[in-house]
């Protein structure tokens, strides 16, 4: 479980996050939604420690991550897997080497065992034939799959995904969403996904947090989101004609 308590973050005196408090539950897919520029990527980067918060607390299973130094954070970070928006695969390394990297860094297994783990992860994300390819030879969907495989290589307790289906076609988006959902249940991970894709919300969202102008405006389940009377949330959720139509039908 990850708890975010009253965090504030600003850049050059411009406030980006204001007193945000959220609890992300274990074994569930927690979705952070909001418009572009609302502060959801900053929130995610604050939680994983890529941005230092100005005030507040970030607790990983009651351990105060925000007060830890680099060495102390290392133990938590070994339990974190993250899928970046563009995949963030190492260009100079093959798919196999990309997934081997965290294992080489932190695992004491033999090379054969590590390789076995790599192929298991690749099989789990259905791209076992791409192990010798380089990131530049992969499609957007394949890059995301490799990024997921790398993220799960060390059996993480916490999985973070920053817009995992941006730039993907609807079918591939659903495949990626379902894969993340399956892995969350399989490894009982605390999964946090940043997205503005309403399909993801309805497909895999166990818990949904709506961020608006750096504030937490709404929190609830994916079923509740369509019945909310929160004005800003409705503006976001029913922005497309398709969802407006769905609301009219129901």
């Amino acid at each position, binding site marked *: 479980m990850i708890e975010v308590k009253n965090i504030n973050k600003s850049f050059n005196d411009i406030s980006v996050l204001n007193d945000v408090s959220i609890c992300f539950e274990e074994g569930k897919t927690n979705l952070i939604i909001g418009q572009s520029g609302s502060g959801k990527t900053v929130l995610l*980067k604050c939680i*994983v*420690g*890529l941005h230092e918060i100005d005030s507040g607390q970030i607790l990983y299973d009651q351990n105060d991550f925000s007060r830890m130094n*680099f060495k102390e*954070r*290392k*133990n938590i*970070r*070994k339990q*974190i897997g*993250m899928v*970046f*928006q*563009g995949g*963030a*695969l*190492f*260009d100079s390394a093959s798919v196999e080497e990309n997934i081997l*990297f*965290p294992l*080489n*860094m*932190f695992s004491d297994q033999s090379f054969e065992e590590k390789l076995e783990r790599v192929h298991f992860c690749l099989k789990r994300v259905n791209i076992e034939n791409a192990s010798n390819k380089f990131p530049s030879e992969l499609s957007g969907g394949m890059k995301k799959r490799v990024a997921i495989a790398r993220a799960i290589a060390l059996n993480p307790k916490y999985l*973070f995904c920053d817009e995992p289906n941006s730039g993907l076609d609807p079918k591939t988006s659903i495949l990626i969403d379902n894969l993340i959902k399956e892995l969350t249940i399989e490894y009982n991970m605390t999964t946090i996904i940043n997205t503005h894709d309403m399909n993801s919300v309805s497909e895999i969202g166990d818990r949904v947090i709506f961020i608006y102008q750096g504030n937490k405006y709404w929190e609830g389940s994916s079923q509740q989101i369509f019945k909310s009377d929160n004005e800003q949330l409705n503006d976001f959720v029913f922005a497309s004609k398709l969802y407006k139509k769905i609301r009219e039908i129901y």
Partner: protein
Amino acid sequence: MKFLFHLGQYALLMQKVFSKPEKKRLYFRQLLVELESLGLNSLGIVVVISVFMGAVITIQTGLNLENPFIPLYLIGYGTRDSMILEFSSTIVSLILAGKIGSNIASEIGTMRVTEQIDALEIMGVNSASYLIFPKILAAVISFPFLVIISIFIGIIGGWLGGCVLTDVLSTDAYIVGLRYYFVPYYITYSLIKTTLFAFIITSVSSYYGYYTEGGALEVGRSSTKAVVYSSVLILLFNLILTQLLLA
């Protein structure tokens, strides 16, 4: 104020770079990759530049020695000492600042803007140390070898330019000049300079790459800054070291 900010940030980055490595075996593997990339792959350009530099020094010195009382073998002597003292260390380092500096800044800068460095940090890897330390070490190891090769090739270039392609002086006179009044300390001086220049090129270029913010345009700007500041620092420290070691 901006200068102090960059100086402080550079010092903090170097502190991170020289902290204890996580897995020495992986760093060693990375070091071998960088030795090939920064050292071996620079050999071609060093050889080409050195041949031409040596040839031009010999021809120009010959053309400017009009006094019949000055022996011609001094041309060989001049070529040797010019290559050792200045051309092979400083000029080759300036050329390598262009080649290697831009390469390092754009490589690390691209990793920054495509979130590859963030990915390393998330995994708990000291990204500064993992990416920069092997580059600095590889350059510090390989540059002195490149300079020794450059001196040797430059002297051969001088012979080709002055004795084979033109008739500035005879091969015998050139060899006498090469053997005349040799000061071994000049080699030490040249290697000390090169080692420092190797550190400057790799650390300054890595600094500009590591703190790149934005996109492709900013990567290009970082690359340019890396080359410009590395070159200026090379010239500045060339002056300081010459004063300290030779004066």
